[in-house]
């Protein structure tokens, strides 16, 4: 019961964050933490729960981001209307990418996902509909409320919080139902899962499509908030890597791991960017890299694992 009180306290704190801090910088960091938590939690469905480590999730993030701005540039729709389009297209892409690559195990799968994402990046960089190498811009100034274009980060904070809550509730529900157990079995090993009668390919695809849809939603939300995307900021390999790092630092395959990872990493990134200006990108990724090397070396289960061993007295299901 104690845990649920803790979760509730955390939720209240996150919900109250923009009201507690008045500085726009901190409010913006809060919104970005939630956005990173959404994409990392979406990655977690496939990479954590099903154990299929994708290093190419930028494909889905980019699909969502581009969908949001393409519906604006082509038809003048409000960008957020592109979100469902992006989610559907992402699920279709997931099906196409997943069907062949899920025959691969371990590193082979990870490398195939990198190649698929780089392929998408190069194609987008040369496709005029997507603005080629220049990228796309959202509405320069809001035409109506539907454009969701706000100067203050606070509305985004609550929008992202709502999406994250839905995603985590869905994940929690899945964890304790048949698909969740199937995915845990798949994570333990394809062959063993199959011998227990788990339809391995179907459930991997299920995890991938769910993961792709929410990653695309995160991409759309990003495009709505930032109002500008280009091939590197929507489809770059670092987008994929960030999702993986955030989830793995917090604890891959745990419900709150990605959120914890985002709470640690995003403020760090924003602070270094603020401190070092444009040159900060380099420093940020040196720090990112160093953190994941250390996590891999000393704490492969992520921060959530620390928590788990600290509260080892309470009985727990084996993962």
């Amino acid at each position, binding site marked *: 019961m104690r845990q649920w009180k803790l979760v509730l306290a955390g939720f209240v704190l996150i919900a109250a964050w923009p009201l507690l801090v008045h500085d726009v910088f901190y409010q913006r960091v809060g919104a970005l933490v939630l956005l990173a938590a959404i994409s990392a939690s979406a990655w977690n469905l496939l*990479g954590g729960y099903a*154990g299929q*480590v994708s*290093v190419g999730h930028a494909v889905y993030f980019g699909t969502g981001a581009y969908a949001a701005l393409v519906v604006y540039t082509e038809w003048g729709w409000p960008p957020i209307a592109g979100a469902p389009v992006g989610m559907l297209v992402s699920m279709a892409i997931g099906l196409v990418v997943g069907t*062949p*690559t899920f*025959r*691969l195990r*371990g*590193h*082979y799968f*990870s*490398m*195939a996902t*990198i*190649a*698929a994402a*780089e*392929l998408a990046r*190069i*194609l987008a*960089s*040369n496709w005029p509909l997507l603005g080629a190498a220049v990228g796309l811009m959202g509405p320069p100034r809001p035409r109506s409320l539907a454009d969701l274009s706000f100067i203050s980060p606070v509305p985004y904070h609550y929008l992202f919080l709502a999406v994250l809550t839905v995603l985590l509730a869905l994940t929690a529900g899945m964890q304790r139902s048949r698909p969740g157990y199937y995915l845990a079995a798949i994570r333990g090993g394809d062959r063993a899962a199959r011998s227990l009668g788990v339809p391995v390919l179907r459930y991997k695809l299920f995890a991938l499509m769910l993961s792709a849809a929410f990653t695309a939603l995160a991409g759309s939300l990003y495009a709505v908030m930032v109002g500008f995307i280009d091939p590197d900021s929507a489809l770059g*390999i670092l987008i994929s*890597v960030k999702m*993986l*790092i955030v989830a*793995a630092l917090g604890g*891959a395959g745990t419900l709150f791991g990605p959120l914890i990872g985002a709470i640690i990493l995003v403020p760090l990134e924003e602070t270094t960017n603020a401190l070092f200006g444009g*040159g900060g*990108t*380099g*420093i*940020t*990724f*040196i720090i*990112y*890299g*160093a*953190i*994941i*090397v*250390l*996590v*891999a*070396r000393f704490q*492969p289960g992520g921060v959530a694992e620390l928590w788990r061993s600290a509260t080892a007295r309470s009985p727990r299901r084996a993962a």
Partner: protein
Amino acid sequence: MILLQVVVSGLLMGSVYALFSSGLTLIWGMMNVVNFAHGDFVMLAMYAAFFAFTLLHLGPAVFIPGAAALLFLLGVIVYLGLVRHIAKGPPLAQILGTFGLALVLRYAAFWAFTANFVSLPDNLVGGTFDIHGLRIEASRLLGGVIALLITLAMHLVLTRTALGSRLLAVAEDRNAAMLMGIRPDRMQAIAWGVGAASTGIAGALIALFFYISPTVGESLALIAFVVVCLGGFGSVPGALIAGLAIGVIEALSAYFIGAVYKDVLVYSLFLLVLWVRPQGLMGTT
């Protein structure tokens, strides 16, 4: 004639690809760990060559072996400090470990050397050979031939020497090798050293005729993955043939459909091969 020209330059580039991919395949074959920082090792070697020339005024005859020695050391350090510990961990930890290393190396280079492209002077290995109308730059010829010879030498060392047998024994069965008095840890450290040294030589060779930037390793790493997947994991001859093939395919697609799309063709081919033959063209497992 132009077609022949394109194929020859593809083969020369391909033999350099084969060289650093052999290093990746050796590491993979030895301990089933992918080095996601492999391309960044090549990048470091390129900068090592660049600074050896610009700051220390050393020529290729010195900086090529120098880069090999430097990277050998780096490989051993990375193995002892990181890889040895994550090799037994979950797959995610393995990916994170070397991926994190790649980020650190890439952005440390970014920070230290700036994002600007640099290159060695064109005339460092000067001249162009003209063989019945077939024009080959001396630097590329030198790079291709040295890379080819070293890749073959690696294969011979692995198959014909006691050290090679010990390495392969550890790759085959760690415990059985240990019972034969082989120290697996030492062998794996050597494999990482040799694998990294191959990127050292390859990087110094590429630097002779290619631009140098902190992110150049990214696409080189992908090429190495493609080559290793095509050639079969752990197979040096496989890497050689696949490396040459990728070099030629790249050159032909750059010539026929444009330079921006050469990677598109290579990556598509990679996905296609993984699809129809997940064990690689020449792999057995």
